[in-house]
């Protein structure tokens, strides 16, 4: 690089980084390097660019793959129907390695290199929390599909939203009435000894108490544990329900050993489908789950009373009646979570249209337009069910499903009401400056 234009003459006191940048942009040397091209502002016909922060590698890879499939299907549906404000939608994908540090870099890359309009699609809580500061500083709206309580806790910032999937605090709270009324009133919790488990540890007892039931024991299992038999004697004999939320590869061993411990005379079992996302419910060792109940965000198996919207959504994403990829029965989806990608993109579409969004200069307007949303009706855009949205805490609240394992399938036996999962807001993002 030469100094012909005086870019390196730092004696010029008037030189600022901004002016130097503009000058350099004109330089032919860098202009030919694709990564360095300074794109012009989006024009009216230019695509709306959505930066998809995907877990392509790392522990979130199984989710990441299905999140990508669902996103691609939603984008196709939106584009086929005319795009957003008449502009086509284009998705730019970057892998965050399911790592919070890389996640923050990826958000920066979307904001400053790809110049996307928003960032979207993150699932794992630690990646969301790690990336949120970068989104707030770049002032780029960050729409996550994580189900963590972090957004609604109002500990992140005004640019982070979760409008497509109910948070875990609400999910747990809405399970309590059904558990107390149908499964039993003396509950023992078994959960992994890290943050996902702590949400269940902290939110279930008060929710059950309000329903006249009690958590009589809480058993935290270290994440590195590979055998669980030694923990089972800690389960009190009077336990009527075992509430389990084990996740990861250990879940198969956990269920198998629980079966060996109890035999045919077991308490009721209630679990969260997070344990078995992307895992076939008929895998060897899971027989013990027959007759037990699970929370499901959106049903994995097609149900007799599925709405037309649900059927259309399943067809568009490419999952069969058993919740596996069409043509590959072993490729089981992450149905309880991935619908959130579909629904979030339609929320983004609605908010952009309400804001008259034209380009990155309208990002603040997009934030305010999203905060102004209150309800999402069930339909093709929201096939999982109706939702309310609280603009102060940037979180939506929807119905939840309780399914029973029956004949190797999951059958929805109860749908909660939105009101079951509502709680007092813990703060207000709208008081933060944009």
């Amino acid at each position: 690089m030469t100094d012909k234009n005086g870019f390196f003459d730092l004696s010029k006191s008037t030189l600022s980084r901004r002016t130097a940048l503009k000058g350099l942009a004109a330089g032919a040397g860098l202009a030919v390097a694709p990564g360095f091209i300074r794109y012009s502002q989006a024009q009216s016909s230019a695509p709306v660019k959505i930066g998809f922060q995907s877990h392509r590698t790392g522990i979130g890879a199984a989710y990441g793959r299905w999140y990508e499939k669902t996103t691609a299907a939603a984008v196709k549906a939106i584009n086929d129907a005319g795009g957003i404000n008449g502009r086509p939608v284009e998705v730019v994908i970057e892998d965050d390695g399911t790592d919070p540090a890389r996640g923050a870099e990826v958000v920066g890359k979307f904001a400053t290199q790809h110049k996307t309009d928003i960032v979207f699609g993150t699932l794992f809580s630690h990646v969301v929390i790690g990336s949120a500061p970068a989104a707030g500083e770049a002032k780029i709206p960050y729409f996550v599909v994580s189900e963590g309580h972090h957004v609604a806790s109002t500990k992140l910032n005004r640019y982070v939203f979760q409008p497509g999937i109910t948070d875990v605090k609400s999910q747990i709270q809405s399970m309590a009435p059904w558990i107390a009324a149908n499964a039993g009133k003396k509950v023992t919790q078994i959960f992994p000894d890290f943050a996902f488990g702590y949400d269940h540890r902290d939110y279930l007892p008060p929710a059950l108490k309000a329903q006249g039931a009690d958590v009589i024991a809480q058993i935290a299992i270290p994440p590195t544990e590979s055998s669980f038999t030694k923990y089972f004697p800690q389960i009190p004999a009077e336990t009527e329900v075992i509430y389990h939320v084990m996740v990861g590869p250990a879940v198969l061993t956990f269920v198998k050993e629980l079966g060996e411990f109890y035999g045919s005379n077991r308490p009721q079992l209630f679990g969260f489908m997070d344990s078995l996302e992307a895992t076939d419910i008929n895998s060897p060792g899971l027989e013990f789950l027959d007759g037990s109940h699970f929370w499901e965000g959106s049903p994995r198996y097609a149900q007799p009373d599925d709405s037309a919207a649900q059927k259309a959504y399943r067809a568009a994403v490419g999952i069969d009646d058993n919740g596996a990829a069409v043509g590959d029965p072993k490729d089981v989806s992450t149905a309880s979570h991935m619908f959130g990608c579909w629904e979030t993109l339609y929320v983004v579409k609605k908010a952009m249209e309400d804001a008259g969004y034209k380009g990155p200069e309208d990002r603040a307007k997009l934030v305010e337009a999203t905060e102004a949303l209150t309800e999402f009706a069930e339909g093709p855009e929201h096939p999982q069910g109706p939702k309310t949205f609280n603009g102060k805490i940037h979180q939506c609240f929807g119905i939840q499903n309780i399914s029973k394992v029956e004949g190797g399938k999951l059958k929805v036996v109860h749908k909660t009401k939105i009101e079951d999962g509502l709680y007092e807001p813990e703060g207000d993002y709208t008081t933060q400056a944009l």
Partner: protein
Amino acid sequence: MTEASPAKPYALHLGVIALLFALSFVLPDYHHGLLARIMVLAVFAMGYNMLFGYVGLLSLGHAMFFSAGLYGAGLTVYHLGWNVPAAFAAGLACGALLALVIGLLALRTTGVAFMIVTMMFAQVFYLVILYFASWTGGDQGLVVQQAARVLVLGSGSLDLTNPTVRYMSALALFSIVLLVTLAIVRSRYGRVLVAIRENEERTKMLGYDTFSNKLIAVVVSGTICAASGAAYALLFGYVGSSFASVQYSILPLLWVLLGGAATTLGPLIGTLFMYYVIDITSGFTSAYLLIVGIALILLVLFFPKGILGSIRQRWLGWLP
């Protein structure tokens, strides 16, 4: 022992700092932000290099020193509302104290045992962070809010979340640590460390207290790593347990090996190289770690002493 002329090394190091300063004015936004992050993590690598490169002690637990700084600074801001300089000092103090304690215990071992002991302590540190999740945020971590990341200077203030301020802060830290490292390795003390690396028994025989010298090196190394962690928390706003995991003990080793162990500028080169290889290749394939692996194998084959180490061996013998 006669010292080599200090002019060349100092000119080179000041030149590198000047180049990084100049880059702030010309780099596109994304690379500007990335380089700020790289400089902070290069400080981590420089701290690691102090012990690994110059004393020959291979630690697999340096993530705990980085995290001590990260949490020392992050938690004092988050829970106690401390200002930026106080939080940074808290991070440094945590790192220095931890390094002193770990050094006293771990230096009773050598070689493979030292690796294992440091790794075990780091694992304990990691699990402690998870155990006190209500304070540390556990595996999810905590966000240090933008409003808390402002450096008040007299009547003015510097917003550390501003890209230019962040870059210059990272550069300032990098420059100070680089020059301090250079001064140490060129000092008599630095020669003693190299002597310990080359032949500890002979150094002892010459009358040096090798344990004390190594302990000081562990504390200096831990403090530099903690400075990097504290700066990371304050500049980038995220404090999380993944930084205390074994991966972050191996990364600085990798960066140092790549750039050149026992070279003052090697850690920067190694960190820069790894970051850009991942950044560029991940845009083409999800199997980017395979490409990173191949790149590493090629480097080991053709630059067995790391990039700068090999350059020093072949062409520039005066490189510190």
